[in-house]
């Protein structure tokens, strides 16, 4: 018990929270970019432009089937070889965005596929252009269906930021490691703190998603 009291000293807690802040920063930025890029890629894969769509599809499959850790390593350690040098935070964001965009693209594509084809046909026969029909008719319906899988993808994004410890991103897990590295007695309190903090961050995400879902279903 004494270990817990010692471990949760003001200094250590502040240090952990600073780590949490970096986790949140990197997560939110990556969520923003990967949502944008993922949606575009998902549409690109759906519209079936010859060669282009299959090429995009193949690239998405490649990225989805690689470990994120490898992509992180590649971004941080291999890209400097060809002259692209990124700092720790940009490298983490780029790697997360590349990987999660591919994951989201697949979700977006299947979401669009789940919208009945008659919706597109009806929109087109009412005189909307393909793009208009896509933006105003298909995507809103598709996103409604996609909220649960998208949110669980975001949750795994938040969890995956912990992998960036390996390139020394000063996020939550890394800061916890530093604390219990100084005193082995703090290991258990630190892991408990990690579990609680990640749980809170991710649970907030799921609750937010549930609220949005309810809002949309009432509207």
């Amino acid at each position: 018990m004494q270990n817990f009291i010692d471990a949760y000293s003001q200094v250590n807690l502040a240090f952990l929270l600073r780590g949490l802040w970096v986790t949140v920063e990197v997560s939110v930025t990556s969520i923003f970019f990967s949502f944008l890029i993922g949606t575009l890629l998902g549409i690109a894969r759906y519209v079936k432009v010859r060669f282009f769509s299959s090429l995009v599809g193949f690239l998405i499959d490649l990225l989805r089937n690689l470990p994120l850790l490898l992509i992180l390593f590649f971004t941080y350690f291999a890209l400097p070889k060809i002259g692209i040098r990124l700092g720790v935070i940009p490298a983490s964001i780029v790697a997360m965005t590349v990987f999660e965009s591919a994951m989201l693209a697949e979700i977006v594509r299947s979401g669009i596929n789940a919208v009945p084809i008659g919706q597109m046909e009806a929109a087109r026969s009412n005189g909307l252009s393909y793009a208009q029909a896509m933006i105003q008719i298909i995507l809103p319906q598709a996103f409604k269906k996609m909220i649960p899988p998208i949110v669980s993808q975001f949750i795994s994004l938040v969890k995956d930021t912990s992998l960036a410890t390996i390139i020394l991103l000063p996020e939550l897990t890394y800061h916890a490691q530093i604390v219990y590295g100084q005193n082995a007695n703090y290991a258990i309190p630190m892991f408990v703190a990690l579990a609680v903090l990640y749980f809170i961050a991710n649970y907030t995400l799921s609750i937010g998603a549930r609220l949005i879902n309810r809002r949309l279903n009432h509207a």
Partner: protein
Amino acid sequence: MFSIITDHWATLCAGLGYTLMASLIALVGSLVIGTAFALMEISHRKWVRLIGRAYVELIRNIPLLVITMAFFVIVPMFIVKVDGFTAGTIGLTIYTSAFIAETVRAGIESVAVGQMEGARSVGMSYTQAMVHIVFPQAIKIVIPPLGNQFINLVKNSSVLAFVAGFDLMYQAKIIANLTFDTFDTYLAVGVFYLVLTMPLSYLMRYLEKKWVTA
């Protein structure tokens, strides 16, 4: 890139072996644990349901790395010394079991309630009905997502690199440190991962299409 593959063929193959072994062990382990928790989640007793739910929600919201590190750091302090491979595989098993529990639960629930009621009313016990009637039907629904879980396992097994678990990612670090050729090394290792995951992911997509629409 080819010189990396030919020069370090043995190292890469050893890494592939460890990655595959960790993934397979974790798959079997998490299938057993996951199914147990899935059954708890659909139990008639409220407190059993609650324990099942709590386990799944808790594990799903914690990073795999944190679970793995916890095993690697805390278990040796009290019980026995564990090597990186063991700690990594246990971490993978625990983490994946929560996702498998969800998959199996969804599979069982998608088998119509009437099937269970029908089986019970012809005199089968709950266990008999589960084993003979519900499970065989649920399996078809569950296999494609389970295959996807296995792909995730292969990818996630790269956390073994954090705890010196001899897997592909760990060997990649060693080769990169040896040759200084980070670019080609990570490309080569990427190819090794893809050889494992790509065919599987296409197979699962095929099965999904075939079985779900059938």
